[in-house]
């Protein structure tokens, strides 16, 4: 009971005040308290909510984007937080980060590309405790993801999923010709393509651009590794035209030969962007191509006639093995954020297995595992085509392989050095040796600058 009411009751009991006076005073006390509480409640609800700026990646898998957006809004409602969500897609993601960081106004939390933690390490918050906690709960990180998220011994981001590439094959064409999926590029893919293509009907055996694009850059990186080469040695020193010169030369020559000598690619392939092979494949003009799961997602969700006729297999390899460049989308909190606790809470919320499962279900293979525990998720058995996605992810390697993932390795990829090298041969008329030498000089220059 309220102290004042108790006191009044005692006074009434001892006859110090009349009953009428007791009722009057009690009414004043009770009414005043009720009015005060109502005012306080109004004031409390009038307080501005904590505002969180979250930047998300807008992938081609639109259903998954919708699920993530809804999950974050649900979290915000639960925690009484106002969230301002901003989406950025492949092309505008990095310019947005650069502009925001340089303007001193980055978001609190962002969904980043695998390059993010390496690129923006100077402005990201150490999230080792959170990342470690989440990883432990999911059986630990896959090796490539751990390397990409952990910079100088600290986790600067929490891994989310891997969007890998796989080899797409027109199963109907393959079966008609009595062929099996190719294991290596040379000679398997070349022979497979030759046997299946029919240029007179505008059907080509292989569609892989060597132009400046994610698809082209990824392929060039993989093919150098497949031939036992690469841009970097195991110590992270430039090796394109030195230690791995012989291997890289063979790899470059093969890439160029797919267009010039073997003629298994469509004539316009050097002008392709990232969507060109998707369009060409869906238009029935390609028998095989390398692409991310977004192409499969597009076919499945649109109930495209080629969806059931498509088989996804492991990316072919070469004499040095079979390699796939890694992908690891992740959550990074900017050091400037005043709401790091809330950001961490939001990451835990969306990375909860039930919610991630919801995201996974609509991703049609795009949200590949980065945690060991997610590799065995029954979802990956729900479609035979997912097997290649998971296996490709598990064996994937980072930029800089066989050396460490460095800022220089990230920049070589971002600057399209390898696709420019191929383009200089195919379009510029340089010899493979000259193009390799020119590209090596650029790698050396980047290495020198990033070291200083």
């Amino acid at each position, binding site marked *: 009971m309220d102290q004042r009411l108790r006191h009044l009751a005692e006074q009434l009991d001892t006859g110090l005040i009349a009953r009428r006076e007791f009722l009057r005073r009690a009414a004043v006390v009770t009414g005043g308290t009720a009015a005060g509480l109502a005012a306080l409640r109004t004031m409390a609800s009038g307080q501005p909510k904590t505002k969180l700026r979250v930047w998300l990646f807008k992938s081609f898998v639109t259903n998954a984007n919708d699920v993530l957006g809804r999950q974050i809004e649900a979290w915000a409602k639960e925690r009484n937080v106002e969230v301002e969500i901003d989406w950025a897609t492949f092309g505008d993601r990095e310019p947005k980060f650069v502009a925001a960081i340089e303007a001193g106004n980055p978001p609190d939390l962002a969904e980043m590309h695998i390059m993010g933690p390496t690129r923006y390490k100077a402005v990201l918050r150490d999230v080792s405790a959170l990342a470690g906690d989440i990883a432990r709960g999911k059986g630990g990180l896959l090796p490539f993801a751990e390397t990409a998220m952990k910079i100088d011994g600290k986790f600067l981001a929490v891994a989310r999923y891997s969007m890998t590439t796989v080899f797409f094959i027109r199963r109907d064409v393959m079966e008609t010709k009595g062929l099996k999926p190719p294991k290596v590029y040379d000679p398997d893919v070349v022979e497979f393509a030759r046997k299946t293509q029919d240029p007179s009907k505008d059907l080509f055996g292989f569609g892989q651009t060597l132009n400046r694009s994610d698809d082209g850059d990824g392929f060039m990186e993989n093919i150098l590794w497949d031939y036992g080469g690469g841009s970097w040695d195991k110590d992270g020193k430039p090796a394109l035209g030195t230690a791995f010169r012989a291997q890289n030369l063979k790899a470059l020559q093969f890439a160029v030969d797919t267009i010039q000598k073997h003629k298994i690619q469509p004539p316009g392939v050097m002008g392709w962007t990232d969507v060109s092979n998707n369009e060409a494949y869906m238009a029935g003009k390609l028998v095989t191509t390398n692409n991310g799961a977004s192409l499969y997602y597009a076919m499945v969700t649109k109930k495209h006639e080629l969806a059931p006729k498509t088989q996804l297999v492991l990316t072919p390899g070469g004499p040095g093995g079979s390699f796939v460049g890694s992908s690891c989308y992740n959550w990074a909190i900017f050091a400037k954020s005043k709401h790091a606790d809330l950001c961490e809470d939001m990451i835990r919320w969306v990375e909860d297995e039930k919610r991630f499962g919801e995201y996974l279900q609509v991703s049609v293979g795009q949200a590949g595992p980065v945690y060991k525990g997610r590799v065995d998720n029954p979802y990956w058995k729900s479609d035979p085509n997912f097997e290649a996605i998971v296996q490709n992810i598990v064996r994937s390697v980072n930029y800089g392989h066989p050396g460490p993932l460095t800022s220089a390795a990230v*920049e070589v990829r971002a600057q399209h050095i390898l696709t420019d090298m191929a383009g200089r041969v195919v379009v510029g008329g340089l010899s493979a040796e000259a193009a390799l030498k020119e590209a090596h000089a650029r790698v050396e220059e980047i290495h020198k600058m990033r070291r200083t």
Partner: protein
Amino acid sequence: MATPAARLPAAAALRRRGASVAFARALGPDYRLGYLFVAPIVVLVLALVAYPFGYAIYLSMTRKYVGVPPVWVGFDNYVKLTWDGFFQRAVYNSFIFTFGSVGVKLLLGMAMALVLTRRIRFRSFWTGVLLIPWVAPTVVSALNFLWIYDYSLGVLNYLLVKVFHVLPRGVGWLSEPGTAMASVIAVNVWRGFPFFGISFLAGMKAIPAEMYEAAAVDGATALQRFRHVTLPALKNIIVIVVLLSTIWTFNDFTIIYILTKGGPGGATQVLPVLTYEIAFGAQRLGEAIAVALYMLPAMAAVIIVLARYMRKGGAR
């Protein structure tokens, strides 16, 4: 009699008054008020033009990565660029792209203006139609051309191969060395020639009909009338339009970025795209600004010529 010490402030006051009178004589009696009136625009120009420009020059002389403070390197970025083969190709491509585009735009714009000055049916309608490329957003135009040029799915190859049978097989318009640059120039021309045409049309309409009549009486042919009447009368407009278009085309980013991203193999790499790539791809901001500023003297010369012509035109 005043002491020398007392005379000093008086002399200073006299000098100040003398300066004030001289200013008033030179700048007018209300010159103080004048300062007040121009102050806002001076502050605005300093804040929005001079400061960012000065800061850009400073940054171009630093090694500046995203999120970390700049490190002063003097002229290193400029020196490095001078000897960089990729940059040299971008400069070369920029000139090819600019002068190729402007040259064709000049010819097409003149043709457009000449046709539209004739008494043709639905002249207003055709004028409107020809202005569409200029009015349409560049991004939309470029994306349409990306599809038009596509080897397998593009309408251009379809028309040339399947409809008109001009070619036995399609051409990789954006992927082959002989056609990539020509293709991006064609898009720039398509988008830019209406500006030339409409400017020339306005100029031609201002030429007195009597001049053509007098030339015709003197026995001048159509070509001679064009050469000796139209061209001299349009001279100033031609210079201004060409110079403006040169500046715009030199700085055009959208068309090449959307169509080729500077590829294949750097065949269409121009300075604006290179600047973007170094800034946001490599994230080396100092060097990116150096790329952007490298051609500033050449562009400044163009701007000075343009400004002089415009002032002369205004004086007349």
